[in-house]
């Protein structure tokens, strides 16, 4: 026969066991957390109405998320940050190893090259990097300039790289090698495009990217009729996440 002796010590032990049991059995409370600096709830329901709408092609039944609908009615707007397929927000990062491509003193018929590296990290699905120049390489007064390259025959253009090996072909252009580089560069260090005055993509992917790198080589070759002077342009590199 078991005899339970009710003492203060036993009573405290009993309540401690009960408390431990309760704390273990209580399930986690799921709060309606709408966002913070590093995380935001990604709504899977963007339609606020509770009826059926349609178009000539098909109809859609609109469903109603209560919290979202409440926010819509109260504020008149809803903000969704990030991407549908990725629930944590990560920064999109872009690095240029150098911002000064100093070509030094140019000698006619002797090509000069300068390099920089572009690096992208993006956890979302896809990115692209574009480049354009403000104007041709020109003197400060803008009266003299170095032509953009047309490459060896066949000729290259802003969207299509071609071989540029001949030192008798003059101009200013760029080559790109590395990760996710446009196919027209042919994986070669001898394929060049002229810089365009509107953005042109040279590196892109439809996948998540981690430290994807490309090396951009800018090349100048002048002929002996090129006027002496200091020539400059601004090369603008734009990194964008795909939507």
């Amino acid at each position, binding site marked *: 026969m078991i005899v339970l002796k009710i003492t203060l010590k036993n009573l405290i032990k009993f309540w401690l066991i009960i408390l431990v049991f309760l704390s273990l059995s209580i399930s986690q409370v799921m709060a309606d957390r709408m966002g913070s600096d590093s995380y*935001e709830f990604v709504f*899977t*329901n*963007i*339609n606020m*109405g509770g009826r059926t*709408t*349609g178009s000539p*092609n*098909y109809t*859609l039944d*609109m*469903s109603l998320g209560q919290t979202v609908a409440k926010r*819509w009615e109260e504020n*008149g*707007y*809803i*903000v*969704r940050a*990030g*991407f*549908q*397929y990725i629930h944590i*927000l*990560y*920064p*999109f*990062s*872009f*690095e*240029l*190893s*150098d*911002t*000064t*491509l100093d*070509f030094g003193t140019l000698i006619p018929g002797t090509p000069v090259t*300068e390099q*920089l590296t572009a690096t992208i990290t*993006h956890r*979302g*699905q896809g990115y*692209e990097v574009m480049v354009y120049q403000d104007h041709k*390489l020109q003197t400060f007064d803008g009266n003299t300039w170095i032509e953009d390259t047309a490459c060896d025959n066949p000729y290259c253009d802003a969207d299509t790289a071609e071989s540029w090996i001949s030192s008798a072909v003059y101009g200013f252009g760029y080559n790109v090698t590395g990760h996710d580089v446009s196919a027209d560069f042919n994986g070669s260090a001898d394929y060049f495009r002229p810089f365009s005055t509107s953005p042109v*993509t040279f590196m*892109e992917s*439809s996948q998540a990217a981690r430290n994807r790198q490309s090396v951009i080589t800018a090349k100048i070759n002048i002929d002996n009729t090129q006027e002496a002077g*200091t020539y*400059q*342009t*601004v*090369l*603008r*590199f*734009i*990194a*964008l*996440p*795909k*939507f």
Partner: protein
Amino acid sequence: MKKSQTTPRGCYGLTISAKVLNLFIWLLILVLPQSARAQQVKISVLPPQVHILSKPDISLIKAFNFENQGDPGIFSFQIVSFKPRGDQGNLQLLDQAEGPVRFSLENSDKRLGDKFFLPSRDTAQAIVKIRTTDNAPEGDYYYTLLMVSEPPTSQATTGRGSAMIGANILISVTNTGLTPSSVKVAQFQIVPRYQFRLFGKTFLVVEPTDEVPVVLKLANTGAFLITPDAKIQVKGPFGINKSKKMLAVNVLSSSQRLLTTRELDSCGHCQTQPSAVFRGFYFGKYQLSADIGFAGANQKIFGQSEFWALPIKLTKTVLLLFIFAFVLLLFLKSKLKHE
């Protein structure tokens, strides 16, 4: 007395050597040629994209954090419109912000277009005030918020680099919160190795051991973006029943988008990126189906296609051998006849 005399002398000696060392270091810095140090730009943005559903005549504020992880530099913020370009989520930036949405910065010390200094390892927050005008027509408007680095100055022949990083701002203006969609399957078929046209019908054919690349493109002809949730399935002889899930990406208004798997599938003979590639052994006629749903909607759309897996190369070889054997037989027969 002795003690008090030695201590200051020792201190004095130390001070002298410290001064000499200091002078020596400064001389080294000044005299030795300094290695040229590249000006590096490393910037990041969070969030990289937002989608805002807004009624007309509403103001809201959204903050974007830009971190400078590179060298200290001069930066500015800009907002421009963009249009979807191609079918893989690329953007075409326009020169300025267009449409019935107005932008300004709520920061006390920054305005759009104004330059500001950002030290290394520091963060600049762009607190963007977004206002939809009261007569804004329903529909989508797309913008990119850019942080632009100021190019360095130089007196030499140079290409001066400027880095820009963008965050997409997708705005759907709607009075009711409803975003009616109009979408259709723009392309759904395999990338065939052979294509035959017989009796007015096109037959898409692959070799039995070929990879079978499938292309699924959706066209959004509506005024609002859609986010499809799609699955591609292959069914046919020998119990083949395979499926692949597509990534739920945005298809912007008045554009097409190629849907793909999360890990991009590639194939040897494809000229462009396929949506998915099915591998294995196929023989006979196969049905291809696409099951496309949309976030928050019960209704679905479907795509259907078919292809044949036939041993064309083997058939060609057997036929050639047969013709060769037949010709040889005729030749031997005529030779025997002459003899």
